[in-house]
């Protein structure tokens, strides 16, 4: 088999695993958009915040230690203990749920019935706020996140592909794990929304806020629920990205990458988020592979957005989205 084809196949596989990572972030967007019609720009920062909190709890950092030190002249930084991962993750989940309650109480409640564009800008404000809070709470330096997931080259894939093609593909084991976890996440979300009472209520709210209110569904509870779930999805995404490349500010920019994923998949479709993520992941890896010798590298920065732009012109509702009908 020619080398180029092999390399392209490897790039495709890497693209698929990268796509899973994008899909994880996009999933959180879709959940909130379906339940409250809000396009949550803060999803990426939520992932960053969750990962920062997890690292901070694991290493026993004192929250706001910089601020306390600056304000009172003290020199506190660590509690002096390390929290094991199996405790730190539930604790972070609790923090994310608390965040969801606060967001509902202080922001969403006051913005009921506003235009979607106002809500969108409010989430941009929330993103900035959370970013600042995260930095002040846990410090802004790059942190390594280790929750015990395997890392490095997968030997199984390497030997397997070597036996088949005579060339071993490089796949990170972490990304294989991410794919597995994403599959479990999607399956459990589907089960939750299809077969539980709260899930049904969630879908009812997504369908029609007022009708859902009139049959006695508490809108505020549903919002807290969705934002909590989105927070947990953000935590999963934060763990994956954080273990891959360290917990740092660039994590929140991944949220921007999730936007074209959503456009491809449609804003309201969970499978769409997955498929969209895979298309973007494979597309940008292959495009970079074939085009970077011609037009220069780092096309990954913009390829996804351009693809989305072209796609929008032909199918504005996305691959799996509901048809957009406008009335006067």
């Amino acid at each position, binding site marked *: 088999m020619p080398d180029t084809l092999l390399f392209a196949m490897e790039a495709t596989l890497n693209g698929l695993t990268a796509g899973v990572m994008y899909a994880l972030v996009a999933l959180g967007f879709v959940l909130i958009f379906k339940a409250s019609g809000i*396009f949550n720009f803060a999803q990426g920062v939520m992932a960053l915040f969750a990962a920062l909190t997890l690292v901070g709890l694991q290493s026993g950092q004192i929250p706001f230690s*910089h*601020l306390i030190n*600056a*304000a009172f002249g003290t020199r506190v930084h660590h509690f002096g203990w390390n929290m094991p991962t199996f405790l730190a993750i539930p604790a972070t989940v609790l923090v994310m749920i608390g965040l969801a309650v606060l967001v509902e109480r*202080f*922001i969403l409640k*006051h*913005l009921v019935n*506003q235009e*979607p*564009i*106002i809500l*969108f*800008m*409010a989430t*941009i*404000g*929330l*993103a*900035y*706020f*959370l*970013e*600042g*809070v995260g*930095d*002040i709470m846990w410090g*802004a330096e790059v942190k390594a996140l280790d929750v015990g997931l395997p890392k490095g080259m997968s030997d199984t894939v390497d030997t397997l592909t070597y036996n088949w093609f005579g060339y071993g593909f490089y796949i990170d084991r972490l990304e294989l794990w991410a794919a597995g976890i994403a599959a479990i996440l999607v399956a459990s979300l589907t089960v939750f929304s299809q077969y539980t009472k709260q899930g049904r209520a969630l879908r009812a709210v997504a369908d029609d806020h007022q009708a859902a209110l009139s049959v006695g569904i508490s809108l505020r509870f549903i919002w807290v629920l969705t934002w909590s779930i989105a927070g947990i999805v953000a935590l999963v995404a934060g763990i994956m990205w954080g273990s891959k490349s360290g917990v740092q500010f660039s994590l929140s920019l991944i949220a*921007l990458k999730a*936007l*074209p994923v959503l*456009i491809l998949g449609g*804003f309201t479709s969970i499978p769409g988020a997955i498929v969209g993520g895979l298309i973007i992941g494979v597309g940008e890896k292959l495009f970079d592979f074939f085009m970077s010798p011609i*037009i*220069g590298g*780092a*096309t990954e*920065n*913009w390829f996804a*957005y*351009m693809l*989305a*732009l072209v796609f*929008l*012109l032909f199918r*504005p509702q996305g691959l799996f989205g509901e048809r957009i009908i*406008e*009335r*006067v």
Partner: protein
Amino acid sequence: MLYREAGDFKTSYVADSQTFPIKFDRVGYYVLLGFAFLVMPLIINDYWANSIVVPFLIYTIAALGLNILIGYCGQLSLGTGAFMAVGAYGSYKLMTAFPELNIVFVIIIAGFITAGVGVLFGLPSLRIKGFYLAVATLAAQFFLIWLFTRTAWFYNYSPTGMISAPQREVFGFAVTGPRASAVSMYMICLCFLVISAWLARNLTRGSLGRQWMAIRDMDIAAEIIGVNPLMAKLTAFAVSSFFIGISGALLFAVYLGAAEAGEAFGIDKSFLVLFMVIIGGLGSIFGAFAGAFFLIVGPVLLKLLLVNGLGWPTDLAAHLEIMIIGALILVFLILEPHGIAALWRTIKEKLRLWPFPY
């Protein structure tokens, strides 16, 4: 008793439809203009010009432009940073290719180039709207910045990848380059701002502005009553990008002097200008001024207070600043979705009725 329409009789339609119908406002406006043109140049020094006044003037032009697009025409754009970069690189290429050309014309032509690019990226707005359009403009943001950092022609093959403004003069005073004085920097930015604001005000209250507002309020209904959405949206993109391009050119040539696309015109610039428009007030010329003033002066004051006043480390102050800006956006959206401009309107209404409550 001063703040009244009563007794101020208008005898022509022109007088009736003027921008400041109340005499007190009118006088205040001319006093402010006189102060800006005659007194400020005498008292301005390097520190004030560099930290507050010049960035305020330049960002106000950008906010005016973005306000036309978002506030008047209702098209959300996150590509402001890239359009400013188009203005900056356009002016750089013109300055180096035609050294004889006056800098004022260079900046205006750079504005027109940006308008062209803006129209190009505004084309998708005919089919898509809202968040979808925001993503389309994100494509502009990332693609253009990539183009400017990767294509050596744009930065004249300079080894650092930076563009730096050569010295250019207006009436014998250096306005760009290292030898430009605070006064000349201030004056050129002020002139551009006053003309831009005058243009924006008169465009938005004319037939074009009404078309934009009709599209913003409900595009399908506007189309039915005879507004051409193609023309309305594309002119909004063109005019908005023109102003943004001018502000980008001024930011690079006059204020920064040297710039690198990813550093100076990244996505955070897009958000900064967007925040100015939101905090100042969507769909208001005064709002652009208020928002830019707030977001330029606020961080400087905060930094003075925390770093110089309390002796806190700068990185902590920077994080607090991000947090406070985010919180302010939320507070404004919840309490006063129409921004500082709406507060100002309320104050004016109260003044007119004073001393009676209503």
